[in-house]
């Protein structure tokens, strides 16, 4: 009896989904395989892609693995997306090499591939829509130097040590300090997995271990918002510089807990993927790389319409 009920429910659900997907049949289908879906950053990329898809009459889906370490799960997602015979495909590869065999298959099937957020070691993607993370983190380093008077101890909290964005933001920040601000000493680089709680604990421990610390750089949304919690709990006053946006970071900047942050243009990244895919389908030639840009924002320019447009809650 249980089984009969399950069968009934399944068929019902199947009919429902079958009906909804049939309605879109004429529009080109562009699946976007992202690095994640839970973070507000990815939700902003998704909303950008959705806006562009609506304007250009395309149908998109957006998915990514639960953590940025799950390289194999992302490959499974790419494989399933290809099985749906899409007209084009967008990918933010977790590993620059692992996805290449499947991308070759896409190329053989004449499916245009658009990379976003970070590139792949291959010339298959027609273009890459991404932020120049090295340059963006260097700007964060300059702002940090400015805020602490060009000398003193600084700590860095990064989301992870293996992803391209983690590596680039860390190195962009460290290299800029080394070459341009030699009086600033980096006392600690720690990894919190982009997790708020872990990053908060790391920040507290950093402050505990380095009583003279003047500033902390949090390299993504979770690292920065977490560091803010840690600094608040420790009761110390120091310069915190963040990355990306999100409701917490925006509030921390308004309250003065955070000096400011670098924002990428996630909505622009999402738009760029769909726009590029549609152009490719029309046979237009694409540039090898599209820099979707980054901005410094703080209390003074947060409500500037140009900045407000790329921030997200």
């Amino acid at each position: 009896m249980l089984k009969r009920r399950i069968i009934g429910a399944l068929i019902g659900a199947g009919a429902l989904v079958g009906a909804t997907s049939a309605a879109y049949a004429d529009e080109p289908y562009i699946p976007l395989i992202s690095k994640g879906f839970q973070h507000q950053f990815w939700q902003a990329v998704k909303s950008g892609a959705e806006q562009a898809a609506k304007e250009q009459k395309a149908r998109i889906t957006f998915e990514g693995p639960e953590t940025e370490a799950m390289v194999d799960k992302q490959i499974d997602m790419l494989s399933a997306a290809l099985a749906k015979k899409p007209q084009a495909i967008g990918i933010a590869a977790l590993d620059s090499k692992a996805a290449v065999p499947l991308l070759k298959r896409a190329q053989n099937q004449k499916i245009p591939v658009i990379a976003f957020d970070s590139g792949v070691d291959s010339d298959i993607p027609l273009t890459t829509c991404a932020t120049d993370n090295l340059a963006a983190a260097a700007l964060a380093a300059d702002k940090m130097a400015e805020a602490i008077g060009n000398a003193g101890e600084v700590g860095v909290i990064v989301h992870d040590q293996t992803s391209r964005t983690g590596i680039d933001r860390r190195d962009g920040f460290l290299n800029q300090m080394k070459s341009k601000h030699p009086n600033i000493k980096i006392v600690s680089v720690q990894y919190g997995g982009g997790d708020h709680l872990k990053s908060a604990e790391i920040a507290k421990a950093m402050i505990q271990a380095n009583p003279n610390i003047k500033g902390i750089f949090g390299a993504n949304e979770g690292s920065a918002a977490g560091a803010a919690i840690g600094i608040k709990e420790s009761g110390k006053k120091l310069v915190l510089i963040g990355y990306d946006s999100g409701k917490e970071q925006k509030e921390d900047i308004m309250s003065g807990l955070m000096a400011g942050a670098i924002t990428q243009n996630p909505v622009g990244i999402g738009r760029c993927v769909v726009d590029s895919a549609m152009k490719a389908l029309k046979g237009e030639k694409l540039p090898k790389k599209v820099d979707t840009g980054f901005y410094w924002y703080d209390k003074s320019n947060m409500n500037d319409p140009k900045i407000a447009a790329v921030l997200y809650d």
Partner: protein
Amino acid sequence: MTQPTDTAPLTNERRIGGLRARVFSPTALQKLLAFASLILLLAFFSFASPAFMQMDNILGILQATAVNGVLAIAATFVIITGGIDLSVGTLMTFTAVICGVFLTYWHLPMWIGVIAAIVTGAICGTISGTLTAKMKIPPFIATLGMMMLLKGLSLVVASDKPIYFTDTENFYMISQDSLIGYFLPSVPIPNAVLILFFLAIASAITLNRTALGRYTFALGSNEEAVRLSGVNVDRWKIAIYGLGGAICGIAGLLIASRLNSAQPALGQGYELDAIAAVVIGGTSLSGGSGTILGTIIGAFIMSVLTNGLRIMSVAQEWQIVVTGLIIILAVYADILRRKKGGA
């Protein structure tokens, strides 16, 4: 793989019972139920989307099952003893990293890397077993500790970076090439699946036809009774955890070969997928009963479900909800069966 595997020794009565007893024995019923669910899922997804029953997609599902299937086999052994192994995911990663060290850092021949991965797995499993058996640390805690320890060690050994196997030209073939494809070019089933299949047969034989298998069930049913009958319980338990570890080493090779790299940050969370497959397959978490076939079916149910929901473009948040529901449903079905069976 097809024999019923009960803890009770094969009595005359049961031998005579033949086919009837086999089909209607509780484990056979459970297998039937899991198998029926799998068929139902396959039928449902084929009906819901024409893209599902395509060769490319089927191969994708098979490839996606291989690693979780192997990990689930490792977990099955330990779970049948009444224990649990939370370290299977990160142990897999650690063995992959060690293999990377042997092949990419030290430029040793491929077969040494393969052996290194499996031996490393066996050693780590043996350590987990010793922690549980000799030092009396509950398996949940001992393997939780190992899970974290190995996760950290993987990152340390690999210096936080993926180790690529680009210098070992044929390494990708372990998972990605297709031996079957040479004979039947139209069904290029990847080697990873072939390895899963052979490992499943070997494991089923071990579980049902060897002393190690008998003690696996006996420990899960009544460890004290086994101890009182003069058996060196600790030794067998350590051996079983060691075997589970070696199997994790095989999973490490499969995932490393598939990604052509050892990804040191990966692995956490994979133990839960493996345990879910084991449980869906009808193995009881309280130990004493379970089958490899059930576990394999469980692993396929998980990957078919994930793939099918993706093919149907179900929103990702809902995919997770549905997977959770299926696990609860599967275990509830198992409980109902136990009530009816009076066991």
